[in-house]
């Protein structure tokens, strides 16, 4: 397929904006991505003409809405190649997915002295829910370290796996370093001991082909708003056997089969995990975003973003006063760096006034910053609509920061 970034940019209305009278250069896609017009129109159209609560009413609008919602589930299933749409649970986002999983999985399978294994490059959302679980259950959180390049130490991983390990929870692509972790190998090593694996795909599913069957992970989570969809919607994929065994993480309407004051029986998978009125418009708009990615072509997107990262790494990295954090062999879409001893906050302020949006700080991954003994970094993160010219603007912004602060 012919990938024309300038044509693609026309699909994203916000990219036309001027910030302080300068063209917006949006390089904060790791935090959230912008939305194509088809997603915005979908949300608008649903509210304007199609809105009705799902799964409850018998009337026309409700049936149509339910159908769209279940079609969205099917779209997600196909997007990550799950076996069945019953394995797709809609949540509020990656954080909601992991918290729900930690509650339900933890309640059933975690006991005192058990171990939960994560990596040292997790986003806080894949640390704190497990820490809270450990506190409740007197379980132990163990951490797989990584090297200076930002690659997991797989030998250490194998040493950490033991008879007490109950679950392994790993970030697929580091939101700070860009490292693509070898999740298939991680899963296979864990499965040799019968241990399930959660893969946090918040920074992966929008950039590379994800096939949960090939990966063979037990759980996979991601957010709508980082995949060109709306905020407040996300996905928890789980192998059906786990979802059948686990109890719901929230109680309420829709997730039940039968309710009396003595006893409630739960609805079937996946509905038992979707209590209350779900964010059905979010789910439907997310499906629209995933279709947009499919239509654009996952491979074309990956190739384009890989060129952007390569160009940015070469141009920015060639200066002696710049240190890049995260130089793994397998790396995508994210460039974390520091300019000399300039504080990232100062740099971010100056970038902002040049219309360049980047993230500065710890990126919700303080342990990564501690590993390198730094306060934070400047992070440029790329999406399918970014251009080489925008990388050039970023370089000019770096030049400006240098001239003001060095």
């Amino acid at each position, binding site marked *: 397929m012919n990938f024309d970034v300038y044509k693609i940019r026309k699909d994203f209305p916000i990219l036309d904006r001027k910030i*302080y009278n300068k063209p917006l250069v949006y390089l904060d896609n790791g935090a959230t991505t912008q939305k194509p017009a088809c997603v915005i129109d979908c949300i608008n159209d649903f509210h304007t003409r199609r809105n009705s609560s799902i799964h409850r009413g018998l009337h026309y609008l409700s049936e149509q809405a339910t159908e769209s919602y279940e079609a969205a589930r099917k779209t997600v299933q196909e997007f990550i190649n799950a076996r069945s749409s019953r394995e797709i649970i809609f949540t509020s986002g990656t954080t909601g997915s992991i918290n729900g999983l930690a509650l339900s999985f933890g309640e059933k399978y975690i006991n005192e002295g058990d171990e939960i294994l994560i990596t040292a490059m997790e986003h806080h959302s894949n640390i704190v829910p497990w820490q809270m679980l450990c506190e409740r259950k007197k379980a132990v959180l163990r951490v797989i370290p990584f090297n200076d390049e930002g690659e997991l130490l797989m030998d250490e991983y194998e040493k950490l796996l033991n008879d007490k390990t109950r679950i392994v929870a790993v970030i697929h692509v580091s939101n700070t370093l860009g490292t693509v972790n070898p999740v298939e190998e991680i899963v296979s090593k864990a499965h040799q001991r019968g241990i399930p694996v959660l893969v946090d795909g918040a920074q992966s599913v929008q950039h590379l082909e994800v096939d949960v069957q090939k990966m063979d992970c037990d759980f996979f989570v991601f957010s709508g708003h980082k995949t060109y969809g709306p905020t407040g919607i996300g996905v928890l994929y789980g192998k059906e056997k786990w979802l059948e065994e686990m109890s719901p993480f929230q109680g309420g309407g829709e997730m039940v089969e039968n309710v009396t004051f003595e006893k409630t029986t739960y609805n079937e998978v996946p509905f038992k995990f979707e209590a209350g009125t779900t964010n059905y418009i979010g789910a439907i708009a997310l499906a629209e975003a995933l279709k947009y990615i499919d239509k654009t072509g996952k491979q074309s997107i990956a190739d384009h973003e890989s060129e952007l990262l390569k160009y940015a790494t070469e141009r920015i990295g060639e200066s002696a006063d710049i240190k890049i954090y995260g130089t793994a062999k397998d790396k995508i879409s994210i460039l974390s760096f520091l300019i000399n001893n300039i*504080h*990232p*906050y*100062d740099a971010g*302020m*100056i970038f902002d*006034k040049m219309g360049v949006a980047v993230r*500065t*700080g*710890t990126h919700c991954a303080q342990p990564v910053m501690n590993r390198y003994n730094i*306060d*934070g970094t400047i992070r440029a993160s790329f999406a399918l609509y970014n251009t080489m010219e925008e990388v050039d603007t970023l370089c000019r912004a770096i030049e*400006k920061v240098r001239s*003001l*602060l060095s």
Partner: protein
Amino acid sequence: MKEINEIQEDIINEFGLFDDWMDKYEYLIDLSRDVPLIDPKFKNNDHLISGCQSKVWLHADYNDGRIYFSADSNALITKGIIALLIRIFSGRTPEEIINTDLYFIDRIGLRQNLSPTRSNGLLAFIKQIRNYAVAYNIKYKKG
């Protein structure tokens, strides 16, 4: 010594000379050198006002009815704004500090630096200045 509001007007006039944001930042970066630096022995967690991004340290001395501030920050633009705040508040009585309506930040276009989501510690810094004033006011009024 000038009144607090006279100094606020001075600052507004100084910044009025700049049309361009970069010039404002350049000026703030220059000003950052004027901050009376906190004694290294006070540059510890007790005096740290922690934002998510830049760190700020603040210390207060009370002398003859007036409060004198010293501070530091690891980000220079933040430190430049601190220099302005210290220019306004240092050497004042607790009552003067408590009764100040701090309006210059808005007027020079730096308001975004003080929003609660802006985690540079400046909002907490101003609050801490007022806390010192309130504390000294109570301590020495009663005494």
